[in-house]
């Protein structure tokens, strides 16, 4: 299968890439191409113009920022994220996630920004990045803006990004408490995944704020608000019991779709199992850290 013919531009400046995309009705940015080229080979997309982003210097940089966050260039591949020393040290859950996305070839070519911008629901990074409170930087013809990761993906293949906006980087605040991420899959992509991130109070054992996000099973990542509220202000040691009590109701509220990855009820059940295991892991991280 071949994509339909198109014009290819390979700008070296961000502003030029935005200008080119804005000037052509049917243009797409080309990063790793792992999703875009598949859609083009299947003739689901027939863009007139592809604007390659890989020649713009610095878009794949990963750096530490003064406000205790890690700034990941949107063009960084899963493999770069997996192997980066800053990410491994400060965001080990994200490094482990990227090490297990897809297969080694897709990890080498596919980028974190491309994963987010494509918004295929069966994806890993959006769930964890939402739980971690990541912020996404978009630059377009009308200037720059920042969008919270959990407000970026609106639905299947639908995001808050305007067509000529480029995602330049993803800022992830370093967590102030335990983080756990799990997923279940029987094919290439996840059927269900779940992330937990706790912000701990100064005493080190009280959960000030809990983020619990599930993904892949519905049209977009979802907060499990009921459990988040149950955990706020509780001691880590009581978390498992509190979650067990609220789990049936919480899982019942999750939007899930029937597809080849499983039926909706089955996936809600799996979400409950993954959440329970994540809570146990998060609590163990606290127990291990305090004598």
């Amino acid at each position: 299968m071949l994509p339909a013919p198109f014009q290819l531009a390979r700008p070296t400046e961000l502003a030029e890439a935005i200008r080119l995309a804005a000037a052509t009705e049917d243009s797409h940015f080309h990063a790793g191409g792992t999703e875009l080229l598949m859609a083009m080979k299947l003739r689901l997309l027939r863009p007139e113009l592809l604007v390659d982003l890989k020649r713009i210097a610095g878009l794949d940089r990963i750096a530490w920022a003064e406000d205790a966050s890690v700034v990941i260039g949107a063009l960084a591949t899963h493999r770069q994220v997996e192997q980066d020393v800053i990410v491994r040290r400060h965001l080990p859950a994200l490094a482990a996630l990227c090490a297990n996305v897809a297969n080694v070839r897709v990890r080498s070519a596919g980028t974190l920004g491309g994963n987010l911008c494509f918004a295929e629901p069966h994806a890993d990074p959006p769930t964890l990045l939402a739980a971690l409170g990541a912020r996404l930087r978009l630059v377009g013809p009308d200037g720059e803006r920042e969008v919270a990761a959990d407000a970026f993906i609106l639905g299947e293949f639908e995001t808050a990004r305007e067509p000529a906006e480029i995602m330049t980087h993803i800022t992830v605040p370093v967590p102030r408490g335990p983080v756990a991420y799990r997923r279940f899959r029987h094919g290439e992509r996840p059927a269900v995944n779940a992330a937990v991130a706790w912000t701990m109070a100064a005493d080190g054992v009280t959960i000030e704020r809990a983020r619990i996000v599930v993904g892949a099973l519905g049209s977009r990542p979802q907060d499990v608000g009921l459990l988040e509220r149950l955990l706020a202000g509780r001691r880590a040691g009581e978390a498992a019991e509190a979650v067990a009590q609220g789990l049936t109701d919480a899982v019942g509220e999750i939007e899930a779709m029937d597809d080849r990855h499983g039926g909706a009820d089955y996936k809600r059940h799996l979400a409950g199992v993954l959440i329970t295991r994540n809570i146990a892991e998060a609590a163990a991280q606290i127990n291990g850290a305090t004598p």
Partner: protein
Amino acid sequence: MSAAEIDLRFTLNGREVQARVPSHTLLLDLVRERFGLKGSKRSCDMEVCGACTMMLDGNLVSSCTTLAADADGRAVVTVEGLTPAAGLSRVQEALVLHGAVQCGFCTPGFVVAITHLLQQHPNADDEQIRRHLRGNLCRCTGYVKILAAVRSLAGTEPGLQPLAHERT
């Protein structure tokens, strides 16, 4: 500046090459049809099976879903580049000795992926081997013999010696 055709210069198995191609050309087709290297295969055509595996600047890619344009200025290595002028590479020999080749359709992709794995992790453990190779599918061998061949190269299992009549 945008164009429907593009001039490429890159190294293919260490040799400088040039080509002018339509922008929508895929790397696999360029290498097979223009340069006549037919080791890399098209099978799934959707980045799942690994029959088309090549190295691009030392990274593994699915050449079935990579633009030829992405090779511009970079180094492409295919199974042909990993095969000595005479005889076999140690990866190829291990696959043969372990009976890890049946129809052989998947083999070129495995040779590239295994070579890459051992470059990164010369003493890869089973976990590393499985994670690196899970994107290469084989419909014949059941993987057991492929794993044994890789373990022998990683030093976690004894290697096999060719029988007298097999020596080259």
